[in-house]
């Protein structure tokens, strides 16, 4: 393996961050495959493997590579943390101006990363691979569809494969996008929200990515909650009352109308005391008021924090030609 050698003190052009968090393939083989691709498009590189402690054993071959002088660094998180936190750790350590993130398994043909890097050179802030043409199993396709009918709509149909983890960007861009919770998965959506240009580049799906993936029910519950959180974050961060107010207005409105109808019926002689429907109506009304009250607290927090939080981002003047200076 002829790695493009990086002299001490000068950063490589590209940092590849591999998050080892689920279904990892042999990591040394993965490294060699991606390294060969980067060699082929003439980029110098360093690799950072950020690993969940569960995969401790799989890191040994990487350490062997490191001892052999390959530009590989291994970070093992001290405790069980998610992909987003692992990515943050990797970003904190990245030395190059360009960053490629890949999962520890193959989703697309590795050669895609050259195209992604070219797109970033061409002005995109974030280039994401899209698994296309797709050779996926039916179950995977169904999950893909479900994801894009929900979270995908937040991008107004501009993204076709949010879940593909093969992405290239500039380090400064990735560091500027607030990443927490489980939101690394939705990075392209967050990038668009923050006003970055996102480009999708089609690359044939890798044959090893077609196997049926079924997760535990808990995973689906967590994902659903994430999507709800994302929806709120992207659409209502600055106007919580519009979200809670709508829910509250529907609830309180339904309850209020039911109460009004029963009240009129009471005037015409039908007693109220034996109508359980009234309990439901009062319940709806109180729930509605609670939702609106929560929205108001949200608005108050936004209002008081407005001075601390810029609600826009300016586009920087076009960057100068050529490689960014080494850091």
């Amino acid at each position, binding site marked *: 393996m002829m790695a493009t050698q990086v002299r001490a003190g000068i950063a490589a052009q590209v940092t590849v961050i591999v998050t080892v968090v689920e279904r990892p393939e042999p990591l040394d083989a993965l490294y060699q495959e991606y390294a060969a691709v980067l060699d082929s498009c003439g980029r110098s590189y360093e690799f950072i493997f950020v690993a969940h402690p569960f995969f401790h054993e799989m890191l040994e071959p990487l350490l062997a590579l490191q001892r052999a002088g390959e530009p590989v660094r291994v970070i093992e998180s001290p405790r069980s943390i998610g992909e987003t936190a692992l990515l943050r750790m990797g970003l904190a350590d990245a030395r190059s101006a360009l960053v490629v993130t890949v999962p520890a398994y193959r989703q697309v043909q590795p050669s895609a990363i050259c195209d992604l890097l070219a797109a970033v050179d061409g002005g995109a802030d974030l280039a994401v691979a899209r698994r296309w043409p797709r050779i996926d199993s039916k179950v995977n396709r169904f999950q893909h569809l479900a994801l894009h009918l929900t979270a995908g709509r937040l991008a107004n149909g501009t993204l076709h494969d949010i879940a593909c983890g093969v992405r290239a960007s500039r380090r400064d861009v990735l560091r500027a996008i607030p990443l927490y919770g489980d939101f690394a998965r939705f990075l392209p959506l967050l990038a668009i929200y*923050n006003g970055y240009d996102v480009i999708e580049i089609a690359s044939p799906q890798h044959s090893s990515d077609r196997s049926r993936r079924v997760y535990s029910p808990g995973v689906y519950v967590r994902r659903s909650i994430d999507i709800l959180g994302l929806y709120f974050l992207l659409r209502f961060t600055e106007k919580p009352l519009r979200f809670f107010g709508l829910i509250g207005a529907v609830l309180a409105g339904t309850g209020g109308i039911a109460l009004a109808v029963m009240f009129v019926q009471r005037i015409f002689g039908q007693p*109220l005391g034996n109508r359980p429907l009234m309990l439901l109506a009062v319940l709806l009304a109180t729930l509605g008021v609670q939702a609106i009250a929560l929205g*108001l607290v949200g608005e108050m927090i*936004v209002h008081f924090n407005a001075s601390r939080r810029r609600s826009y981002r*300016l586009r920087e003047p076009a960057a100068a030609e050529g490689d960014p200076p080494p850091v």
Partner: protein
Amino acid sequence: MPPTSLLALSIVVPMYNEEESVSPLVDAVREALAEHPSWELVLVDDGSRDATVRIASTISAADHRVVVLQLARNYGQTQAMQAGFDRARGRIVVSMDGDLQNDPRDIPLLVAKLEEGYDLVAGYRMRRQDKVVTRKIPSWVANRMISWLTGVRIRDNGCSLKAYRRELLDQLHLYSDMHRFLPALAAATANARIAEVPVRHHARRFGVSKYGLSRIAKLLADLLTIKMIATFRESPLAMFGLGALASSVVASGFLAAWLLSPIPNAYVFPGSALLCIALAVFLTMLGLIAEEALQKVRAEEQLERFESRAVHA
């Protein structure tokens, strides 16, 4: 924080897909301010997809008084305005629309009024040139509601042509769609002295109007927010306490209905009363949490204000 070198006057103009209006607008501003010693025009592009930025940049390259800011995406008029305010170096800042419906010849009138000792001078459109059903009537209703709810009597909140003192803008931070309620916010949170002057209004010459009737629900939510901020900014707990009190009163009503009910087992009444009591407890706790969440921010805000006052003094 304001930049250190101050000019006399900054004009801030948010622009969204206004390629036809840019040049005539700049010309009109130049003409209107020909006598004025030092001014700058800050054009804020709000993620336009037409040639707005290109045209504006060309003008800016030839005339250093014209500054172009480009937002990274289409954020909305409020954010564009705030970006302009953040960049403006004028001791007086004037905001106006980028669609030529406002007339730059009114700028000196606003500035003169401001110099009589006001913090904010709002223009109101005389003989407004807009469609009656989709623009004038909703706008009339909205203005009435804003005046009534906030107690700030502004005839025309939707008119973008306004002049502000730098010191006032330093205290305001716009977000969401708040530019429409700027006078109400300024009065509620910064005790601004506000005046109005009549301004000219032209029919739209180019492009299409960027508003629609769908704003009413949003407007209602925003109004509720403004009302809350104007009234309960100092004490959110008081607001939630009042809500809890109201809920308790309703609960008592249900209990009374239970006692007076002719039906023997009218359990829906005590049930409803319990729900209302639960709501009262919830609101009280929510009020406490709100106070908690705001405590630190408020302390910082107060400090900032005193510091900013010291800078301007």
